């Protein structure tokens, strides 16, 4: 809907430690490594779009058959995501896809991926600045 020129800076961090050149995060209890990548060039403001997920255990092995759900929002605004996004399995080892994601405001967002997989339950949190 909007040109990529409206794409603002994307910075990703985990637990406050900035990992600006990486979109890999470790889950809170350290059971999983999660790579989250928008399918668009940058993160669009306003448009529905999808992200790819690569889910691995702490040894780097792809995690198949995990139940994933995504919530999130803007912590400083106290509201969640404006859409009912879904996560589904896609082709490839440890590959999943988030569909129907929309960021409708510039500012600090948080994505919380709840993981129920072979290493047990855990949550991975991705912070981004839009």
């Amino acid at each position, binding site marked *: *809907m*909007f*040109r990529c*020129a*409206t794409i*603002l*800076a994307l910075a990703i961090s985990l637990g406050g430690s900035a990992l600006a050149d990486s979109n890999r995060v470790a889950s809170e209890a350290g059971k999983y490594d999660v790579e989250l990548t928008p399918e668009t060039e940058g993160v669009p*403001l*306003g448009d*529905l779009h999808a992200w790819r997920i690569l889910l691995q255990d702490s040894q780097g092995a792809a995690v198949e058959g995990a139940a994933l759900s995504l919530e999130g929002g803007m912590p400083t*605004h*106290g*509201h*969640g*995501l*404006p*859409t*009912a*996004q*879904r996560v589904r399995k896609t082709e490839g080892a440890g590959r999943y896809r988030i*569909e*129907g994601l*929309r960021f*409708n*405001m*510039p*500012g600090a967002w948080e994505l919380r991926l709840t993981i129920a997989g072979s290493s047990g339950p855990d949550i991975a949190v991705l912070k981004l600045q839009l």
Partner: protein
Amino acid sequence: MKRVLTALLILFSAANAAAGQDAWTERELMLVRSLALSELAAPPAAPSNRVADDPAARELGRQLFFDPRFSLDGAVSCATCHIPQHGFQDGRTVARGIGTSTRRTMPLAGAAYSPFLFWDGRADRLWSQALGPLESAEEHGGGRTRYAHIIARSYKNRYEATFGPLPPLSHLPSRAGPVPDPDASAAWSAMLPEDRKAVTTIFVNIGKVIAAFERTLRPPVTRFDAWVYSDAFPLPGALNLQEVEGLRLFVGRAGCINCHNGSLMTNHTFHNTGVPPGPVSDFGRAKGARMVVLSRFNCRGPFSDAGAGGCPELRFLSNKGHLTEGAFKTPGLRGVAQRPPYMHAGQFETLAEVLDHYSTAPQSVIGHSELLPLDLSQDEKRALEAFLVTLSP
């Protein structure tokens, strides 16, 4: 380019120092540029309407838009409330057609970019939005057979050039449709299912050609845009210092850009900002989200031209009560100073009242307001208002 930008920033820092201001940050500049009209691409594809970009359909839609025969008393057209000379709105607190509505007329420029239409988003396609007022007792007040007969009588050639031969209609009642009027409703129920379907198809096509016309309505270039494109940017020039200060508040401390973002200055989503209720208790998006899912005229319905997967907005629609109760669509701000009153039922007469509301952020009567008090000073409110005035030609 980078060198030029650096030079500009240094220049501006000097000017800011003279004016007692801080320099613009890269982020602020990026946010300001993202509001410019040049960032507005062509309207998104409309797979649910196969004639959305058809020039002949567009012209037919333009004619229907201005034709008052498409109403109960022959005196109300789309343009009665969506007045072209007034930014396609009417300046009233609530719309007045055959009767009186409970909500304010929305302007139309840029409507093609919105995934959900109306203050509550109860329509998900521009063509289905156009159908709502045609059957509303307070707006056009007519019924489907009346509209189909007008097409057959006055627009037969143009209609058939786009949609193919009209079905036989002469045996159908002059006033019938699934509307609150008991006589028209009974006449509609008495019609054969195939006749109802044929008439509804014509009715939907009326919406589709009107949508094709409305897709062409873009907001004009404003004084703000001219300044962003100018050599002076981001120094005052086409915008004076007070207006520029207002813009800095808009993208900064006042947080207006949270919802009023992008070149249309709306995020097209729904927010509870605690505005006082209008003439009726209005739950806004909470009801609209339920209605759009159930509508036969939605993107997934039998009259949509979208194939499988063509309706992502409906697929990912969220209807979480705490987000939608008392929430209304963020209106775009282009031309805002020229179209008081404000909010979904014209609750505020002036921009100053609007800014007072956002500054104090009162509790919501329905649901929960997302606002936090801004405690803007009088000077800050005046600067914001001055900036909003620049969003017009």
